[in-house]
């Protein structure tokens, strides 16, 4: 049994994305401090190398071990590889994940015969930075031993009105606030939704939904001609069933597509929900026949392998 990789493009350029203002900082919203997130590679999801790399915390690379998964995926080829150099150095300011490139530009494929059980152990950056600050504070104090020792929190200092501090509080929780991405408060993720043929645009906050099903239901309410007839029980495209997929894409049924952070258009449903929320920038509901151009090149790979 083989499964396909979602194609993106073969030029996966992974570099520090400072122009977008630390767009990867979103991910920290979804992970609690110290929580371990395990991403399993089920056959129902299709991953691209680039997508997964975004979620690999560089410093933790060294801890990742290739494990065999419960499913018999030994023979699968996975478009994912660890950089040859092993663990990366500091995760990078605003981004964290895939900025540092220690290997040459990744091609779509890597030779990696085993599946990877990715443990995403995102330690909050605050811990690291707090340590730095404590060290430097001590240095300052040593210069002036006559001064009273600094307390951790001094009442009423600095003289910022409580009113203003309260305004700031939720937003000051991450270290890289200065590079905070443009389009969000701490919690909302508004994206535009357009449907081919409809004369209006809608906007949804993806964080209001918990799954693809919720989103589909909402979209169906917004755009009445958008039905979910061909979708499976989970409300997403069943990528695994090739024939079903091809039927869908050949039909005049509408399928939801989205533009991700890299500007590429993808079929909705090809990545886990959380990943989708983070990377989706806008949604477009188009006819299946138009979407066929977006169908994973992997579909061809599927064909070629079977």
């Amino acid at each position, binding site marked *: 049994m083989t499964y396909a990789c979602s194609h993106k493009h073969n030029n996966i350029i992974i570099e520090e994305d400072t122009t977008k203002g630390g767009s990867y900082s979103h991910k920290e919203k979804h992970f609690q401090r110290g929580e371990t997130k395990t991403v399993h590679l089920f056959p129902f999801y299709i991953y691209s190398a680039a997508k997964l790399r975004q979620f690999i915390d560089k410093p933790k690379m060294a801890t990742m071990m290739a494990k065999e998964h419960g499913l018999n995926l030994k023979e699968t080829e996975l478009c994912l590889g660890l950089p040859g150099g092993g663990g990366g150095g500091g995760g990078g300011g605003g981004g964290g994940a895939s900025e540092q490139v220690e290997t040459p530009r990744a091609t779509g494929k890597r030779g990696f015969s085993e599946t990877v059980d990715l443990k995403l152990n995102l330690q909050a950056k605050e811990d690291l930075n707090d340590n730095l600050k404590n060290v430097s504070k001590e240095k300052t104090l040593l210069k002036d031993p006559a001064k009273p020792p600094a307390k951790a929190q001094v009442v009423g200092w600095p003289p910022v009105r409580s009113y203003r501090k309260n305004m700031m509080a939720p937003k000051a929780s991450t270290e890289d606030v200065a590079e905070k991405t443009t389009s969000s408060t701490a919690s909302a993720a508004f994206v535009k939704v357009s449907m081919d043929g409809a004369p209006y645009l*809608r906007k949804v906050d993806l964080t209001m939904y918990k799954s693809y099903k919720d989103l589909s239901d909402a979209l169906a309410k917004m755009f009445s001609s958008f039905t979910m007839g061909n979708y499976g029980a989970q409300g997403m495209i069943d990528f695994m069933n090739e024939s079903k997929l091809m039927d869908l894409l050949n039909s005049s049924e509408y399928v939801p597509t989205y533009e991700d952070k890299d500007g590429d258009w993808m079929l909705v449903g090809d990545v886990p929900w959380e990943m989708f929320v983070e990377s989706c920038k806008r949604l477009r509901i188009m006819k299946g026949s138009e979407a066929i151009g977006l169908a994973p090149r992997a579909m061809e790979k599927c064909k070629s392998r079977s």
Partner: protein
Amino acid sequence: MRENHPSTNSEDDHRSSLLDLARAEITESSNSKSRTCGGFPGPGSGSGPSEPQAPFPDQVLENVLENVLHFLSSRRDRNAASLVCRSWYRAEALTRSELFIGNCYALSPTRVTARFTRVNSVTVKGKPRFADFDLMPPNWGAHFAPWASALAQAYPWLEKLHLKRMIVTDADLALVADSFSGFRELILVCCDGFGTPGLAAVAGKCRLLRVLELVESVVEAEDDEEVDWISCFPESQTNMESLVFDCVECPINFQALESLVARSPRLKKLRLNGFVSMAQLYRLLHRAPQLTHLGTGSFSATEAGAVVDQEPDYAAAFEACKSLVCLSGFREIWADYLPAIYPVCANLTSLNLSYAHVNADQLKSVIRHCHKLQIFWVLDSIRDEGLQAVAATCKDLRELRVFPVDAREGTDGPVSEVGFEAISQGCRKLESILFFCQRMTNAAVVAMSKNCPDLVVFRLCIIGRYRPDPVTQEPMDEGFGAIVMNCKKLTRLAVSGLLTDRAFEYIGRYGKLVRTLSVAFAGDTDTGLKYVLEGCPNLQKLEIRDSPFGDGALRSGLHHYYNMRFLWMSTCKLTRQACQEVAQALPNMVLEVINVNSEENAGDVEILYMYRSLDGPRDDAPRIVTILH
């Protein structure tokens, strides 16, 4: 931000006011020459005497005087005029229409209403500024209630009320609404104690209301008490010119607001709270393109989970507001919407982004259009790079405030001496600056002192306490010294960083016009404070915290305390004994000793709050406050 001009510290009670009020005792008691004020239709008799007109040779002069005095608006001038002689005193008292009470505890309301009988505008200030930073117990005082009842009785024709740092309850607002039929203007700055019921009373009953401004006041909703106050405005056309409610933390009835705006043709100032979304703002802009001052509300699509129709052309809506000169708000800014304000940037004289997390690039896209900008408030998220952009474009800048996103003490911050110096290079007309940073050098401060000689307000807050100059490792004395030396118009100064007595020596020697001085974590010995108390004759407000000044320093200011609005010293080295001595030496001073953390009769003084009073100590002090006399 309240006004479209730099905020200078202009409250000062002239020393003469103490003497002239004492003279009032003399005047009232000797009724030998009392006569009516001729020729003025008085709005009620108030408490003035009414006696038969006696023919005096200088009656004509008296009439002339009273006519002329009507034109005196500055309270300093009026205070001076009132000291000339008894008749001038009386004439001035009868013609003063605007009352300014800088400290609500400096005198009793009845004294005020007895002297001034034809007042139509009252300003009262309560707590000292350090109360904003939680340094004062919350129940300390500054209740508006006694003033409300006194004013309601004495001035039923009152039109304007302006309160700062007072506790105002819903009952007080209801009394105001009921008592003053011609009421026009209510401005509450940094007040608390009231909620939407009070606002509803004012909106509903004050049919002639023009101005309702709530500035940085705490207005929170208790669910069961929340009232739709916007719906309480009169249903016909209103006279509203200014509606400011950006600090109100309750949702508002948008339909009612839209209708209100539509039926308020004179509306010029509108500042919305964070519960108004971009789409709603759009609708309001269409209703009120004549606005000059706008607070944009959330500046995002805030309906959580809801869907919004096709994006309207926000930029066009802004462009239609040809008179817009002042923009603020951006409470939940969605930076994608920033381009909407580009069309108005060229006309802006005032821009407040201090609630908006914008980075340098986003700021640049806006600021490069803002050539006329005079007042700019912003967060340090724009970094030094952003400040450089400001310096490059805003050549007319008069007031700059840079607030910290992260107010914790650290070593690195997004703004530093680099941006600071850039501002000083680019904005030569700067008059007022408030700057929070984690690092600053003497060189940059000296540069600003030379580049910006018009500085009137200089407030630098280096967040890390006791921080020396990171380049030279020296104290920050020289930088602040240069400021007082070179900025000859300086009236307000706030210092920070590592400072020795030398800095205070500079201030005492050169800061001759300084009226307000804020000191924290600075100085070495009593000598520092002595320099200031002996050297600064115009000192009005002195607030000091966590500095090693003690009894000797306190005593060195005895000659000056009557001239001041107040002295605040907290976590210094004062003893109760010394405070007691001062209280005895100066009978008209009220010394409040507040010991929050230690026992009532402890020898050390945690907080000393000292001010002059004509009517003795107040009677509404909580237990935690000990008043020495």
